[in-house]
């Protein structure tokens, strides 16, 4: 087990280095001069040259990259070109908002997704099953930004029951629309997976046995079937938590949510390379580590995985 965890940890290092290289090269290709961005129009050539020398951006790209990696090793993500603040402080200010939104979305996924999946499985081929199947199929086809806009119109504008954008005072009302939007696609996948996993489990002999010994329907489904059926669903939700932390750019933009996704998007438009690279790196880091934790938990639950992976080396 320790060997497995160590190997997975070692595999993360080249991935992270690769991402910094890709982002660094991408940002380096942009034909805009960071010194010009910082000093804005009207700066003298001398002032620009001084700043370039100070920032080290007059050096070759590999020298700049090495400097960045050394800086990263100390946990420093650099200075924003636009805000004249450290990237660390910008991300520290906005990231908690994204995490809160992601957790709200996960909560919706768990409650609605699992419930819909169970109903669909135990009432197979009834109206409820069809309803869940149709709505989950539709949900994966709806672009999140359009869903968000529709909900803004219906609940914010026409009914006037929920705020249309922003985080306001941080009360739960402000979370409902963005969290539903963010959770929509994943909830559909959770419901589908719960359904198929549940159907597989309830066809097993031990479920028939449980009924035969006189247990109630609720006890059989709730105690015997659900526990086993939820294993793959929990994995899916775990992986999704990692994805949601970085997948909120569109939702945060539509709802003007002050999260990291919106910060990165604005930074891309403003060519603020340190914020883009730093923000993306943090998101990828979270994603990779959550994946790792999910894999380790799964390997603990199912020993076949760690042995199989060692053999196949994938």
């Amino acid at each position: 087990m320790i060997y497995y965890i160590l190997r997975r940890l070692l595999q993360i290092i080249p991935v992270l280095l690769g991402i910094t290289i890709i982002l660094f090269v991408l940002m380096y290709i942009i034909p805009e001069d960071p010194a010009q961005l910082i000093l804005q129009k009207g700066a003298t050539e001398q002032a620009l040259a001084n700043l370039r020398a100070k920032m080290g951006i007059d050096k070759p790209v590999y020298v700049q990259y090495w400097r960045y990696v050394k800086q990263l090793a100390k946990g420093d993500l650099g200075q924003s070109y636009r805000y004249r603040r450290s990237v660390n402080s910008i991300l520290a200010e906005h990231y908690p908002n994204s995490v809160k939104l992601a957790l709200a979305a996960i909560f919706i996924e768990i409650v609605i997704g699992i419930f819909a999946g169970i109903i669909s499985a135990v009432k197979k081929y009834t109206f409820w099953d069809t309803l869940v199947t149709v709505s989950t199929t539709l949900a994966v086809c709806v672009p999140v930004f359009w869903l968000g806009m529709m909900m803004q119109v219906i609940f914010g504008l026409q009914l006037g029951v929920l705020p249309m954008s922003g985080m306001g005072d941080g009360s739960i009302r402000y979370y409902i629309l963005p969290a539903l939007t963010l959770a929509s696609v994943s909830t559909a996948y959770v419901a589908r997976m719960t359904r198929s996993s549940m159907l597989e489990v309830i066809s097993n002999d031990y479920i028939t046995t449980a009924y035969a010994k006189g247990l109630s329907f609720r006890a059989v489904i709730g105690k015997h079937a659900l526990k086993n059926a939820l294993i793959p669903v929990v994995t899916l939700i775990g992986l999704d938590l990692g994805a949601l932390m970085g997948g909120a750019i569109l939702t945060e933009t539509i709802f003007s949510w002050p999260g990291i996704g919106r910060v990165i998007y604005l930074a891309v438009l403003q060519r603020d390379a340190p914020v883009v690279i730093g923000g993306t790196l943090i998101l990828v880091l979270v994603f990779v580590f959550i994946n790792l934790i999910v894999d380790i938990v799964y390997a603990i639950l199912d020993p076949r995985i760690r042995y199989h992976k060692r053999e196949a080396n994938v």
Partner: protein
Amino acid sequence: MIMDDDKKVKKVGTAAIPDELEIEGKYSRSSLYKDAWKRLKKNKLAMLGLGIVIFLVILAIFAPLIAPYDPNARVKEDSALGPSSQYWFGTDLLGRDILSRVVYGSRISIEVGIVAVGISVGLGLFFGALSGYFGRWPDAVIMRVADIFFAFPYILGAIAIMTILGSGIVNIFIAIGVLGWAYFARIFRGSILSIKNKEYIEAARALGASNTRIIVKHIFPNAIAPIIVYATMNVGTAIIVEASLSFLGIGVQPPTPAWGKMLSESLSFIDIAPWMMLFPGLAIVITVLGFVLLGDGLRDAFDPKMKN
């Protein structure tokens, strides 16, 4: 060894030639596809998906004949009109007919779907073949690079590439195409691993066939089914990503009608002209639904065991 391979074939499923066909000596490439087509025809939802896709392709090709007005013609006195018998989907703030713009918008979506996914498939097959067939260091390097692409948030990656390349349809093809290769490479690699030690591949090698010939003539036809399934589903994703990029203002530029762009233009007027956002959105949903239903149907058709 043979037992092992058989197990793998069953596991990979869609890439495999059904065992009973092999045993009876009926194996031929066309029979796999004929069987799949027979099963696909019986699947009503898949046929609905295929119908939607064909309808959209016709819409895109014959847009100038189908659209009632010029999609960029502005009629000032007709601005922001609701749906009516003259303008079925209403008009936007510049007085352009939304139905005509939706019809022309199908061109961008279909183009992106086909070309961008085509690029992903091409790159994926090339690197997947290198990785799966040759193994060793090419495999290790390609799969680690694939890991990097898997870890990269899709939309964020597309935004970053579009920022550098600049907006425009060709750059959208490149951004979406380049970001999607890793999945195809993995699927193709898996298929090759399950096939490459089969007797008929060894026989081809013994007959002196080159690596390229073995991959193209013998492995490719047997490993392509899951690629077709995933590519079909991926077209829907590519269309949504293009719409998202255009919505964010870094995709297709005005005045070219694109559904995502139309939605972003409607954002400021959702209170006075809600129909501006309704129809382009519905168009995206129906298009993606078509490809999803067709993809699901193809998956079931190629591998009935996967059903349910």
